[in-house]
């Protein structure tokens, strides 16, 4: 599918304005530009309809390396600029790409890099856990941080205000009544109508990027598996892909197939859980119980076959740490048949429920234009007509050996996100069957080769929420110098602020659930 011809045209177009140094990189196209051209590049990229994918920075000695990643037609471009300043200033790309907004704020909080002209340069990941002039991802900041006994409350965050007769504010969270992750939502409403929603995340900031530094490949894979508990396979796979690029390690075919099986099993389990949760949020509890039951059965098979319900730590650098025996293959296949049958029954009941239909259709509408502008990913994007899936458009083993459809809908409402999930389950079940049929006896693990210091890798996989992008660079002695992972939630969360507008306050929970961003993956 990928047609990389556009890069030559793009390069020609850029060359009139910007000097680009093309750097050799095993995993992707890597271009280095002058810091002053940072924003100009984004402007031309937007004209050429490139998608903004991710942004991060890194300190190397006294220099700051600032990165951004773009994509078009399945080809990724990694853009880099280097700054020697103590407090670098760089023109913001968020003025061009709204998707870059929070990422730049994260970089600003973590590195003290100033983004000039940023539309919203309030702090983002920074709460009150470290002092104003401390930047945790700089090398002079201790790994343990300098924690005070109790982190003081973040009382004075400058939320957007609204004034007018009958306008009121509803603060929700970060502690919620349900057992969910922490996040704060600030609504401005008139009556029940939502005028504005502002998200305040960062409550589950775990310092993943900081503690990744100095880890061995195995330890990094374990850490990546804990970025977001529900995407343990996705993040772990992305990190391993990046490391394998950097170390020039090729994984055995059987290991690739098993990775595919793990990822699709994770997708099915999470989609089942989400569909149930959407039903629960509109008090259609019967369906929720049924979906929960199906998910539980699915997870129990995980436990039987892979010895872990959520498939944690099954992907390791160089291959996989589990096998699928003949009997397990039969069990998985039998399970798939069973799930198809039971799911069809439940979907019939769900489809026939007019009260459910009344709640889900037209609610939480995300237009295709907004979905594209915010660079949304996964089922959120595909329910709003964005036809992109890493598995197909930037394919990788084992997805390059099979054919499959990517379900896309264009209604953009909650129902659409619900049905896209259902279709993705069906696709995943077919993929699982194909992968099992393709399994041939073979190695599970390739011997690890210590990469040279400074080797980089960009690992991109389609997690169940959408595209996961992991960047990492090795130091000497097989140690990780820098690890950054961009969970799809980072780009999907801002879309929630937009899609709830013109909805009523009591419809927010189901809008939120239809998107189901990860707090942990966002906060890192």
């Amino acid at each position, binding site marked *: 599918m990928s047609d990389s011809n556009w890069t030559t045209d793009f390069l020609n177009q850029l060359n009139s304005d910007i000097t680009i140094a093309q750097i050799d990189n095993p995993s992707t196209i890597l271009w280095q530009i002058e810091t002053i051209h940072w924003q100009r590049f984004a402007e031309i990229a937007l004209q050429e309809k490139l998608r903004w994918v991710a942004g991060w920075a890194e300190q190397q000695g006294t220099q700051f390396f600032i990165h951004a990643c773009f994509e078009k037609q399945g080809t990724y471009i990694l853009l880099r600029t280097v700054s020697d300043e103590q407090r670098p200033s760089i023109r913001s790309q968020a003025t061009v790409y709204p998707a870059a907004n929070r990422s730049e704020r994260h970089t600003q909080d973590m590195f003290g890099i100033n983004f000039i002209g940023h539309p919203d340069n309030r702090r983002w990941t920074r709460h009150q856990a470290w002092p104003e002039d401390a930047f945790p991802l700089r090398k002079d900041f201790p790994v343990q941080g300098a924690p005070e006994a109790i982190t003081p409350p973040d009382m004075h965050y400058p939320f957007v205000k609204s004034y007018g007769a009958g306008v*009121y*504010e*509803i*603060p*929700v969270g970060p502690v*919620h*009544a*349900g057992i969910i992750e922490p996040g704060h939502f600030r609504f401005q409403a008139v009556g*029940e109508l939502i005028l504005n929603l502002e998200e305040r995340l960062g409550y589950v900031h775990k310092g993943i990027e900081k503690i990744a530094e100095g880890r061995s490949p195995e330890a990094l894979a374990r850490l990546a598996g804990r970025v977001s508990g529900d995407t343990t396979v996705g993040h772990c796979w992305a990190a391993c892909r990046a490391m394998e690029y950097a170390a020039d390690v090729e994984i055995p075919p059987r290991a690739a197939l098993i990775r595919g099986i793990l990822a699709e099993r994770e997708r099915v389990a999470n989609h089942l859980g989400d569909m149930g949760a959407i*039903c629960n*949020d*509109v*008090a*259609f*509890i*019967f369906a929720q*119980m*049924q979906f929960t*039951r199906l998910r539980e059965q699915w997870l129990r098979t995980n436990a039987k076959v892979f010895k872990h319900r959520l498939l944690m730590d099954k992907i390791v650098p160089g291959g996989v740490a589990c096998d699928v025996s003949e009997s397990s293959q039969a069990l998985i296949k039998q399970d798939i048949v069973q799930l198809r049958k039971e799911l069809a029954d439940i979907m019939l009941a769900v489809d026939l*429920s007019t*009260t*459910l239909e*009344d*709640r889900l259709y037209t*609610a939480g509408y995300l237009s295709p234009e907004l979905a594209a502008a915010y660079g949304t990913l996964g089922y959120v994007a595909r329910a709003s007509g964005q036809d992109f899936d890493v598995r197909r458009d930037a394919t990788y083993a084992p997805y390059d050996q099979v054919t499959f459809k990517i379900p896309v809908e264009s209604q953009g409402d909650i129902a659409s996100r619900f049905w896209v999930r259902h279709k993705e389950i069906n696709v995943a079940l077919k993929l699982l069957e194909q992968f099992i049929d393709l399994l041939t006896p073979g190695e599970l693990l390739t011997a690890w080769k210590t990469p040279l210091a400074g080797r980089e890798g960009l690992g991109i996989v389609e997690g169940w929420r959408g595209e996961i992008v992991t960047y990492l660079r090795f130091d000497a002695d097989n140690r990780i110098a820098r690890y950054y992972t961009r969970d799809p939630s980072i780009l999907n969360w801002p879309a929630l602020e937009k899609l709830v507008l013109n909805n*009523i*306050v*009591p*419809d*927010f*929970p189901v809008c939120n659930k239809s998107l189901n961003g990860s707090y942990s993956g966002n906060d890192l």
Partner: protein
Amino acid sequence: MNWLIAIFQVLLFVALAPLLAGWLKCCKCFLQNRRAPSLFQPYRDLLKLTRKQPVVSEQASWVFTRAPYIIFSATILAASVVPLIAVNLPTSASADVIVLVGFLGSARFFLALAGLDIGTAFGGMGSSREMTVSSLAEPAMLMAVFTLSMAASTTNLSVGITHVLNEGLVLRPSFVFALCALVLVAVAETGRIPIDNPTTHLELTMIHEAMILEYSGRHLALIEWASQLKLMLYGVLIANIFFPWGIAETFTPAALGYGLLCIMGKLTLLAIILALSETVVAKMRLFRVQEYLSFAYLLGLLGMLSHIILEASR
């Protein structure tokens, strides 16, 4: 003697309300493929709550701490007006259906005040929604009950029920309309699906629960108990107005016992119907509630009209 039986009936009301809630929970669990807690779990929950220390916000005024007692008492007074196992008791003779609505209204008034008192966004939101719902539900309820009043030429429930008993089993279109209206109102007033979801944890979708989010300990116990009472009250109202057969007209132990058995049977059945309906429908959008309650009002009105047109001339 009659007063003793009246007091006994009220005590019975208060004592059985958690049991009805427990039974409803059992039915719902069964329909959702879940294992139900014990039938007596609501009693244990109430007991647990009374033992816990209530946590009260520093911002709370006397309204917040007194409200649970007022709400509980007002709901009990309301329950005393409704004939449970026997008619012609002095409590139901001394007050009529308008007083019943008044008691429920004052309980709600204090609940809404308590929701506002703390000053949290959820409390205010819940109170505002509750008042919206009730301002539409009250007229619909009165309209439904007035149909009965017109048929029996009284606003007294006890007399009205006796009238229905004496008439025997006659199919009256007005009563069918009134029954439908009252059922719709009861669902809305007791905060059941599709109007409100009593089991939800989603603060933003709550109506009743949003007002009581800040309550804990014995305060919460009283409010929970009051809402269980209210659920039972509406159940008894529906059962005894439209299907009064079995209710004791004399105060012999046998008649009273039979009356108790009958009402428990009827409530058991009503709870099953409620659980079924809660399982097959999803909660409606908040802005649909007014259409729902307007429909209930319309049914009440139709009931009254059909009484005037079809029945009153006889």
